[in-house]
Structures are given as structure tokens and as C-alpha cells.
């Protein structure tokens, strides 16, 4: 076991050495640990957020006697069901400082983890079609720049130069320009999971798979540990990173959360040669698209709009997304959709996440990622680790309190109110 933890650093030299000896020396990237009976801290949920939290608990706060408990295998939930976008182009200060922290962590992530997460800052462009959308882009871009984040307003000629094959004759949703964040882009979803898992493991964290939490041990308002399908595990600090299952797991501890679970679909076409080198969102309906390094065009749109734990959606939204895509970029019609999937989104009542303590001492909540969980992974782990270790939120996640709905301090980026299927 310890031999794996001391595994070699990944490097060009290591690759050369292994190439010369038939790749016989690569050990497993992390240990598939059996749970011990007691830890200093437990993380429930082995997705990107949970693994990142464990990594930063070890790295930033010296807490290495930590286990991540995952019901199935790591990265099997939304970490494997997203569209891999990274960006920090938010309007509200409480969101912008957090997502910019995440962007800065993405920018140094691969060196930090010694793992190729395939972070690609290829630029995220939000198109606009009319004066109202342009005004909103100007306002958001100015807000971003006030936070020291890059944003550029492009006119029609600049957009045409970047993407000559969009439909610029669309009468109903004419493309007039866009707001570009050049530092935005994509990363490789599996590599993010594996990179955080390996880096956490190397610092001593146990990654325990096939271990479902079935209950909590709570005495006198303080958490003492959890019941699992692999026996009880004791800990004074337990952090929940359960995404779409947050309500179900929270209920086991008696938490009633401002969350509904909804299905969001995404699609990927057959692979074609590189033809789409950025990330673009359309201004006529919700549609966004990028091209993966394998060549498939990856795109998606809105929530199906009804509560769901099914991890699959319905054809109505499929049609809706395809129509928006065709309106923006007619060449999509010549491609075949290869795969389509749905993820279960933990939608909050204001569309923003929660990273906070709970009324139960020692129990911490990381949830409500809505449709923006992937890009948040590094900062989510960084902030949640701080919150768990110090028993108080960091300034960066100080707007993500659980009680903000009760006190009226909501963080409603889209202004839709307590209608989670609209965020």
C-alpha cells in the first residue's frame, strides 16, 4: 500500500523510462482503500467536489486522516455527466469572487496535482442578439473587470472572424456580437476526478468505494460518525458532497434543504476534425457548444423542468436543444448525435450553491451546484476544506450560507426567484 503512495511523479522522464521497459512500472494511481473505523474527517461523496475537498484538507490544513466515502465508484455521478466548461463570467460579487478563485486554481491545477487535467483556455463567448442582451453583456463584463477578471465585448465583425460558419442571416435571433472571456475554456472531466483522487491519496487520504452511507450518528446535536454498508465509521467532522442526492443524504441527518433535484441533458456528436476551437453560448434560447479533444461536438441546453432522479431526460428538450443549435450553426445538421445523457442537478431556490456549516455540529454541507458544478470543483474543494477545518466559511464562500434564504440574502444570478426549474 505504502509503495503506491510513494509512486513516481508523472513526468516526461518517467514516460520515457516506462516506454523503454514496456510500461511495466506504472502502479495504480490511488489505493482502493478499505475503511478504517475512525477518521478525523469524512467526506460523503466521491465526485469532483468530494475528492477536491479531501485533497485541500490534506494540503492546506494538514488533515490527512481523512476518508472519502463513495456509494459506487468515484466520478460516477455528475463528474462523468457534465460538459466540462470552466469560466468565471458571473455578475454578482458573491459568485464572481468564488468562480474566479476556481479559475485561478484551474490555471495552476496540473502542476499542483502532477496530473494532466487537460485544462484548455480556449475562450468562452456568450453571443447577444439585441440591445437588451448587449446591455446585459456590457454590465456583466464591466462587473467582471471590476473584480480583475478578463472580459471583452466583441462586435459582429470580431465574432464573424472567429466563427465564420454561424448563421448570420437568422432574422429572429440575429447574432450581433458577444462577451468573450479568453481565460475560460474546458478541462477533461475524468482527469479532474483521477487527478484529485491520486493527489489526495498521495497525501494519505483513504478513498473508499462501494461504501454507501445509510445513516448518521448524532449525539447531543454533534456528529459522531456515519453508518455505512461497510460498517460504522467514526469521525467528528463529516462533510456532505452529494450533489443530486443531497436531499436524500441530508434527510438521513434530519436536514431539510432548499433543494430540488432536476435532470439536465447533454449531447455529443460523432468525432470530426478540429473545427470548433472555443466555447460558445447562443443568444436565442439556451444552447452552448464546444468540441472535445476527441473531436465530438459537445452541447447542451436547459433543464427538462420537472423533479427527477432518473439520470435521463425526455425528447421534448432534445428537440429544443437541437433547434437552438441549428439556428446558431446550421452545419450541426450534417452531424449525427452519438450519445446523450442526463445528470441529476441539485437546484437551489436562487440558483447559487451552498458551502456552509449545518445546525448539527461537525456536519458540513456542500450542495446546490445547480448546473454549474464542474467549473466550481477546485474552489469548492478549497473553500469547503477551509470551512470544515476552521469551522467557519472563508470570505470567498461567505455568500454561500445555508440560512441566506431565511434572512433574504439570496444570490439570484438570473432573477427567477424560488423556482428551481427556471435557474
Amino acid at each position: 500500500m505504502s509503495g503506491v503512495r510513494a509512486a513516481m511523479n508523472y513526468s516526461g522522464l518517467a514516460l520515457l523510462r516506462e516506454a523503454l521497459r514496456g510500461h511495466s512500472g506504472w502502479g495504480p494511481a490511488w489505493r482502493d482503500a478499505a475503511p478504517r473505523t475512525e477518521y478525523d474527517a469524512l467526506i460523503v461523496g466521491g465526485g469532483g467536489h468530494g475528492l477536491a475537498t479531501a485533497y485541500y484538507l490534506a494540503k492546506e490544513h494538514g488533515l490527512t486522516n481523512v476518508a472519502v466515502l463513495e456509494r459506487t465508484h468515484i466520478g460516477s455521478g455528475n463528474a462523468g455527466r457534465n460538459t466540462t466548461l470552466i469560466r468565471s463570467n458571473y455578475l454578482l460579487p458573491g459568485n464572481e469572487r468564488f468562480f474566479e478563485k476556481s479559475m485561478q486554481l484551474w490555471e495552476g491545477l496540473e502542476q499542483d496535482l502532477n496530473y494532466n487535467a487537460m485544462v484548455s483556455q480556449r475562450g468562452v463567448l456568450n453571443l447577444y442578439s439585441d440591445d437588451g442582451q448587449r446591455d446585459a453583456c456590457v454590465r456583466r463584463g464591466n462587473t467582471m473587470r471590476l473584480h480583475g477578471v478578463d472580459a471583452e465585448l466583441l462586435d459582429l465583425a470580431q465574432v464573424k472572424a472567429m466563427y465564420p460558419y454561424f448563421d448570420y442571416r437568422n432574422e429572429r435571433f440575429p447574432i450581433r456580437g458577444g462577451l468573450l472571456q479568453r481565460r475560460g475554456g474546458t478541462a477533461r472531466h475524468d482527469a479532474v476526478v483521477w487527478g484529485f483522487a491520486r493527489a489526495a491519496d498521495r497525501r494519505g487520504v483513504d478513498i473508499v468505494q462501494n461504501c454507501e452511507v445509510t445513516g448518521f450518528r448524532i449525539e447531543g446535536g454533534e456528529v459522531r460518525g456515519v453508518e455505512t454498508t461497510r460498517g460504522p465509521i467514526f469521525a467528528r467532522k463529516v462533510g456532505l458532497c452529494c450533489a443530486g442526492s443531497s436531499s436524500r443524504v441530508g434527510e438521513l441527518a434530519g436536514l431539510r434543504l432548499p433543494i430540488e433535484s432536476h435532470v439536465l441533458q447533454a449531447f455529443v456528436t460523432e468525432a470530426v476534425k478540429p473545427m470548433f476551437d472555443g466555447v460558445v453560448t447562443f443568444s436565442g434560447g439556451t444552447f452552448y457548444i464546444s468540441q472535445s479533444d476527441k473531436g465530438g461536438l459537445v452541447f447542451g441546453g436547459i433543464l427538462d423542468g420537472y423533479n427527477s432522479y432518473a439520470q435521463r431526460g425526455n425528447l421534448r428538450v432534445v428537440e429544443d436543444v437541437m433547434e437552438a443549435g441549428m439556428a446558431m450553426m446550421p452545419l450541426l445538421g450534417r452531424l449525427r448525435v452519438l450519445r446523450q445523457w442526463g445528470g441529476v442537478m441539485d437546484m437551489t431556490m436562487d440558483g447559487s450553491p451552498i458551502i456552509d456549516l449545518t445546525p448539527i455540529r461537525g456536519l458540513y454541507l456542500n450542495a446546490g451546484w445547480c448546473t454549474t458544478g464542474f467549473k466550481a470543483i477546485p474552489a469548492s474543494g478549497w473553500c469547503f476544506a477551509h470551512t470544515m477545518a476552521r469551522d467557519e466559511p472563508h470570505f470567498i464562500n461567505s455568500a454561500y450560507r445555508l440560512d441566506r434564504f431565511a434572512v433574504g440574502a439570496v444570490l439570484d444570478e438570473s432573477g427567477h426567484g424560488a423556482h428551481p426549474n427556471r435557474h
Partner: protein
Amino acid sequence: MRLPCPHCGSRPADEFTCYGAADPVRPAAGAPAQVWHDYVHIRPNPYGLHNELWQHVHGCRRWLVMTRDTRTHAVLGARDGGSRGGGAA
């Protein structure tokens, strides 16, 4: 996806719009803030059967209460929302 309407029969899902949970009961206007907070923000979010309000927007325009399984999307029943009582959603 098709949904059952008690007035129009089985119709394509495109004709309907989902409002959300049907069970929360609107508190009295003077109820304490905590009661209003629970009503507006806290959701049972069940893994399984869920009573929810849908409107048959492109049909009879009636508000309906559907009982749907959130694990499978199967609709187990639908009735007219007028029998629900209890004021606005």
C-alpha cells in the same frame, strides 16, 4: 413523453408546463417568517412519488395535480387542481 389530462386524455408532454411541488400549503398572510420561509424555500424533494402542479397550457389550460415517480418519470395519477383547495400555489 405523454402525460394524462383528466379532461383531454393522454397528450404530448409539450402541451404541459410544470410548476413544481403541489403539497406545500400556503400559510396565512400573518404567519411567522419561519413558516413562510419553509413554504417558499424548503422542498421535500422525494426520491419516489411526488405530487406536483402542472398546467395543460396548450390544451384545456386547467391546473392539474399529477403524482409522478421521480425515479422513473412514470405518472401514476392526475386530477384536476380545482379539487386541491387551499388557495394559490
